[in-house]
């Protein structure tokens, strides 16, 4: 009787450990860092039929219905220029120039991988709507408040957030070698108390 109970307990522990460890892996998009440039990371197998079970599982969990790389290049970013988690309580400046794609956008997602619930309607910037400097470069304020910024992504109520860079119909050079992409830089400017 005692040994039957022990077997039952061992099986239960095994199921819990196996399921829990699998869910932890699938829920952690940062494990996808097959290719990483300045904390922007992606996986060339995203959406493809050649994806291994872990890549397929992670993509299904954090980016279901993603297109393959021939159509779209996706990169994700969870960290600032010093490797610290992006947080609602901090002000960031993102800057860059033209990206090698027909159309691109950068969107903020809350920790649950949905758009932050804040009513601001400032979830993203895209290639067609950005206000640019005379030389074509652009800057975006990523923060809970807009201030006097021309371009703004609101992170109000986003908590620990992350960004998704989408490049649709990427140029051949970018498709063949994603290290040639001039990734936008993200600089943490300051943080409110309690978010240092």
């Amino acid at each position: 009787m005692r040994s039957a109970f022990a077997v039952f307990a061992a099986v239960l522990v095994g199921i819990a450990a196996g399921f829990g460890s699998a869910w932890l892996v699938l829920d952690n998009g940062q494990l996808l860092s097959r290719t990483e440039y300045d904390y922007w990371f992606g996986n060339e197998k995203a959406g493809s039929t050649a994806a291994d079970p872990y890549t397929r599982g992670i993509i299904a969990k954090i980016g279901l219905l993603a297109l393959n790389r021939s159509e779209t290049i996706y990169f994700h970013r969870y960290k600032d220029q010093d490797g610290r988690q992006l947080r609602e309580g901090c002000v960031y400046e993102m800057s860059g120039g033209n990206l090698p794609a027909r159309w691109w956008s950068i969107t903020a997602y809350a920790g649950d991988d949905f758009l932050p619930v804040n009513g601001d309607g400032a979830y993203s910037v895209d290639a067609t709507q950005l206000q640019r400097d005379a030389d074509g470069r652009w800057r975006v304020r990523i923060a809970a408040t807009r201030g006097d910024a021309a371009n703004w992504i609101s992170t109000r109520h986003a908590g620990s957030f992350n960004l998704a860079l989408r490049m649709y119909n990427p140029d051949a050079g970018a498709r063949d070698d994603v290290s040639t992409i001039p990734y936008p830089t993200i600089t943490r400017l300051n943080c409110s108390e309690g978010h240092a």
Partner: protein
Amino acid sequence: MKRLIKYAVLAFAVAVVTHLATVLAAPYVLMDVAMARVSKADGINHWTHPPRTTETSRKVVRPSPDLAYSACVYDLDGGPVHVTASAWDDYMSVSVFAHNSDNIFVINDRQAPQGVDMIIVRKGEPHPPGAALVVESPSRRGIVLQRRVAPTQERWEAANAARRHDICEQLKS
């Protein structure tokens, strides 16, 4: 002691099997959830045209607020499915995702400037006569997704009007 090791080995073996089974099953389960959500309003083999993406859009993770999405859950049980998507004057694509979440096909407006007209059949099944574009699905069910770049309210309304007559339905014999 020996018995304790025996139970630890058993727990470890069960953990490994459960871990692998969860990883392998996750895409199917997540697709099932997405298919149930997408087809809830308009059913199977029918385009669903959701409202503009906002913070209240919670059917599929990481939606882009700059795209007008339409989705159709296809089911090939009753035969091939006919899918059309009207032309768009900016980036537009129609993509097909199998039950395991693989992106098995995608076509964009540059490849189909007059719009998309295609038939989805079960892999290995005969192609309908006269069909110009046929996609073979390895699974009976899956999702067809349409994306149109529409970053402003005005462009979204134009996209919404453009897709109004798009078809996703069982092929009429």
